[in-house]
């Protein structure tokens, strides 16, 4: 276990080294690409190794750093849960590090701020690693802020556009509100535990009321970072504007760090779990999943779409966590462990496929200079490898067997179908409804990614620069391939993964999932073999066998030739690329059926030449329902306060005096 910790420290060190090296990139731009980013990839690899070793070993390791405050030295703590998230950070970090050099080359010329990009990327990674490794709330918060701040600078990387600056500011603002909420939550725990170390908090006995307060604060804080509806508004603004490998890290990994924080705080530190928390988490999770995918469907900017889809997937993860809380709160420890494993599995999966898709979007951006789906088309024939890898990502995120997204959704379904064991009839009715929402979400996600893949990679190119797209360098492909292989492996060998993951509930809940893997590596049986079983290897084998049988059947004797010709299209003229269905048209039925949930501005105007113009904008309802009222409230409050700003120095001094007196009175 100590090896794992030293590997983790090595990862942090390498990340910091990568950040340090990049400082010199202003003089020698190639330094970033040749040294800093490979070191970054190595840091990812080290974190991956550390995580896997920690999971394998199943123990815990702690260490006190000679840093921090005198009475509060920083403590590192590595257990299975932390190890698992280290592995997530590591694998996506490594893939991004492999992908990035070629990508950075594309922006090397145009951008002045390479040191900033490299430096903050390294800091960002080390921040995330330290959050996971932290053994006390103080280090946790410091690392958390390091992660938030460095990612703020990365979001603001293309700061020449005003919209990007606005997105970055919104991100900073919400990250801080969230950070404050988490800090208060830790404050509650610390006051009961008598210290900021996690061990003290774990030992503390909270009263139910204060436990709920701590839970609510943590849910708001971590939920804001995880982009749960309605606190998601920053996410679709901030994630797309960063460089693509950073988007992959932010969407794939940083959101997972929030999930880690939530699990650590609620499952591990808070103590007695109440089932009402589960209901709240379930409700917010389902809402996020559904709204996330619906808004993703309305986007035609590829990266923005992927960002909204992250909201959806985090919703699915939180559905799993909510189920787990609910079962744990009602005393069903086995089912709680099952739901927790489902949520963790989906975290890993989402990191892999969302990282893959963001890197794919980066490859498209690199090669075709395009983010807008409406301008793409026919990329599969121009970038076949990226096309294939992106397809794997789409299949995984659409939760189709035998890929990884399906396994975690299947586990979540299995966990929710055990609702009949609950005593409360209302909960028994509620949970299957949540499961149906999950099914709707999955089907809509499939719709969404048919749209993405069909519009971007199939059909014909819609613009000239997309027509000229060339395959990307092999290092970029390698970065994507790492994640794609992960997607396939996690889909085909779920039993091994679940066996590895069941250490985590064993450690923090005291109850593992022995029966899930009790029937050999072929069979995944979360509860019992009669209740439900899934054998991904056999599904793949059967699919292959059937394909072989089918091919063999009509290989013999019948015509094999394929003749090429013009498309038929019901006998209409040869279609041009402008006659294809567009992304907006593809999603139009959804827009109409779920119209209630969007704020749609649609108008048809005739300009002075008599040309019809169709304008369509779909807005996020969260803005009008939540953010603008708050903004107005704050605005009105500030207007009150601004009256103090009279410009007279003596009045300011008077206020200072008054403040001083009040403070003195309070502390006396």
């Amino acid at each position, binding site marked *: 276990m100590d090896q794992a910790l030293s590997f983790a420290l090595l990862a942090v060190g390498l990340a910091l080294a990568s950040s340090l090296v990049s400082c010199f990139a202003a003089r020698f731009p190639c330094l970033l690409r040749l040294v800093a980013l490979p070191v970054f990839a190595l840091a990812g690899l080290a974190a991956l190794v550390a995580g896997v070793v920690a999971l394998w070993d199943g123990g815990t390791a702690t260490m006190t750093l000679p840093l921090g405050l005198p009475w509060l030295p920083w403590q590192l703590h590595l257990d299975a849960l932390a190890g698992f998230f280290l592995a997530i950070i590591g694998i996506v970090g490594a893939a991004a590090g492999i992908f990035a050099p070629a990508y950075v080359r594309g922006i090397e010329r145009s951008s002045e701020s390479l040191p900033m990009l490299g430096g903050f990327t390294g800091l960002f990674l080390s921040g995330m690693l330290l959050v996971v490794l932290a053994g006390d709330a103080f280090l946790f918060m410091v690392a958390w802020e390091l992660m938030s701040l460095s990612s703020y600078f990365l979001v603001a990387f293309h700061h020449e556009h005003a919209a990007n600056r606005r997105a970055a500011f919104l991100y900073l603002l919400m990250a801080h509100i969230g950070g404050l909420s988490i800090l208060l939550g830790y404050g509650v725990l610390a006051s009961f535990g008598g210290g900021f170390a996690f061990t003290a908090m774990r030992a503390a006995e909270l009263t139910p009321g204060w436990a709920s307060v701590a839970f609510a604060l943590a849910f708001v804080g971590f939920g804001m970072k995880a982009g749960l509806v309605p606190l998601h508004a920053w996410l679709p603004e901030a994630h797309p504007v960063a460089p693509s490998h950073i988007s992959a890290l932010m969407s794939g990994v940083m959101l997972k760090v929030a999930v880690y924080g939530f699990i650590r705080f609620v499952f591990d530190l808070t103590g007695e779990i109440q089932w009402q928390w589960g209901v709240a988490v379930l409700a917010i999770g389902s809402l996020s999943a559904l709204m996330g995918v619906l808004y993703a469907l309305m986007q035609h900017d590829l990266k923005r779409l992927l960002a909204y889809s992250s909201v959806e997937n985090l919703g699915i993860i939180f559905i799993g966590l909510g189920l787990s809380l609910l079962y744990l709160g009602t005393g069903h420890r086995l089912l709680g462990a099952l739901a927790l494993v489902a949520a963790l599995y989906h975290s890993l999966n989402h990191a892999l496929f969302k990282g893959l898709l963001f890197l794919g979007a980066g490859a498209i951006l690199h090669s075709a200079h395009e983010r807008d789906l409406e301008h793409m088309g026919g990329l599969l024939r121009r970038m076949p490898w990226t096309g294939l890898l992106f397809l794997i990502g789409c299949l995984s995120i659409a939760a189709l067997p035998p890929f990884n997204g399906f396994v975690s959704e299947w586990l979540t379904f299995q966990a929710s179908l055990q609702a009949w064991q609950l005593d409360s*009839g*209302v909960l028994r*009715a*509620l949970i299957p409804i949540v499961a149906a929402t999950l099914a709707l979400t999955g089907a809509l996600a499939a719709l969404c990614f048919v749209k993405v893949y069909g519009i971007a990679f199939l059909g014909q190119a819609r613009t000239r620069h997309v027509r000229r797209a060339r395959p990307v360098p092999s290092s970029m492909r390698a970065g994507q391939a790492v994640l794609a292989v992960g997607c396939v492996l996690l889909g085909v060998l779920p039993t091994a993964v679940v066996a590895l993951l069941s250490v985590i509930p064993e450690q923090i809940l005291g109850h593992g999932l022995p029966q899930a893997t009790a029937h050999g590596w072929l069979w995944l049986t979360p509860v019992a073999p009669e209740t439900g079983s899934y054998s991904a290897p056999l599904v793949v084998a059967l699919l292959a066998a059937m394909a072989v049988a089918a091919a063999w059947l009509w290989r013999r004797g019948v015509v094999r030739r394929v003749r090429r010709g013009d498309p038929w299209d019901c006998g209409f003229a040869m279609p041009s690329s402008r006659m294809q269905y567009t992304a907006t048209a593809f999603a139009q039925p959804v827009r109409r059926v779920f119209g*209630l949930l969007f704020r749609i501005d649609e108008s048809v105007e005739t300009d002075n030449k008599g040309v019809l113009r169709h304008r369509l904008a779909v807005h996020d309802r969260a803005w009008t329902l939540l953010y603008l009222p708050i903004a107005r409230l704050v605005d009105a409050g500030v207007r009150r306060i601004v009256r103090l700003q009279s410009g007279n120095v003596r009045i300011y001094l008077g206020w200072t005096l008054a403040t001083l007196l009040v403070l003195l009175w309070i502390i006396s």
Partner: protein
Amino acid sequence: MTLAELPLLQQLLLVLAALVLFTSFVLLEQARLVSAIHAFAWQGALIAAITVIVATGGGAKHLYFSALLTFMLKVLLIPWMLHRQVQRLDLERHTQALRRPALVIMAAVALVVFSYWLALPMVAQELTFTRNIVAVSLAIVLIGLLMMVFRPQAVLQVLGFMSMENGLFLAAVSTTQGMPLLVELGVAFDVLVAMVLFGVFFLQIRDSIESLDVDRLNRLTETVENER
């Protein structure tokens, strides 16, 4: 006690009760007036069938009579009267879709869950299967009220009212083997009178506000500001 242990007759009773609940949803959502009237008639028929089953199972002879009464009144007479009203008011092809149906249906589903939750404490005193029917009948009553809230059309309002009465009747039949015959007769008579009154009322509001939309009755308020 699980369902499979109940005698077949009681299982049938539960199936019919669930179907009554379904007709309530159909009533709530139905856009066409004539179809809504048919749905109401079906609801009545189902309730009559339930009454017959309870009568066979429990041996309360007067229930046969009340089943007959229900059948005559709610399956034949009232739908026929409503039909004639609709014909006379020339509303046969009238459709009025529910606005935001998804939300209303979700509200109705929530009402079902809520009434189930309300009925839960009864388990301590009664048989489970009775509790369940009480939950269903309470849901039917609440959905009837919900229908009166969300459907401004006067005929549909009447149907909502009548289906509330159906829910109450279902509860009475299934839990306490029906009310005393005298009470039942009185209620039936009341319903009939209400029906006649409603008929007159339709004609009157039709004459005075040229529509059967009860929202238009807002104009009858004294304050002028309410008028759009």
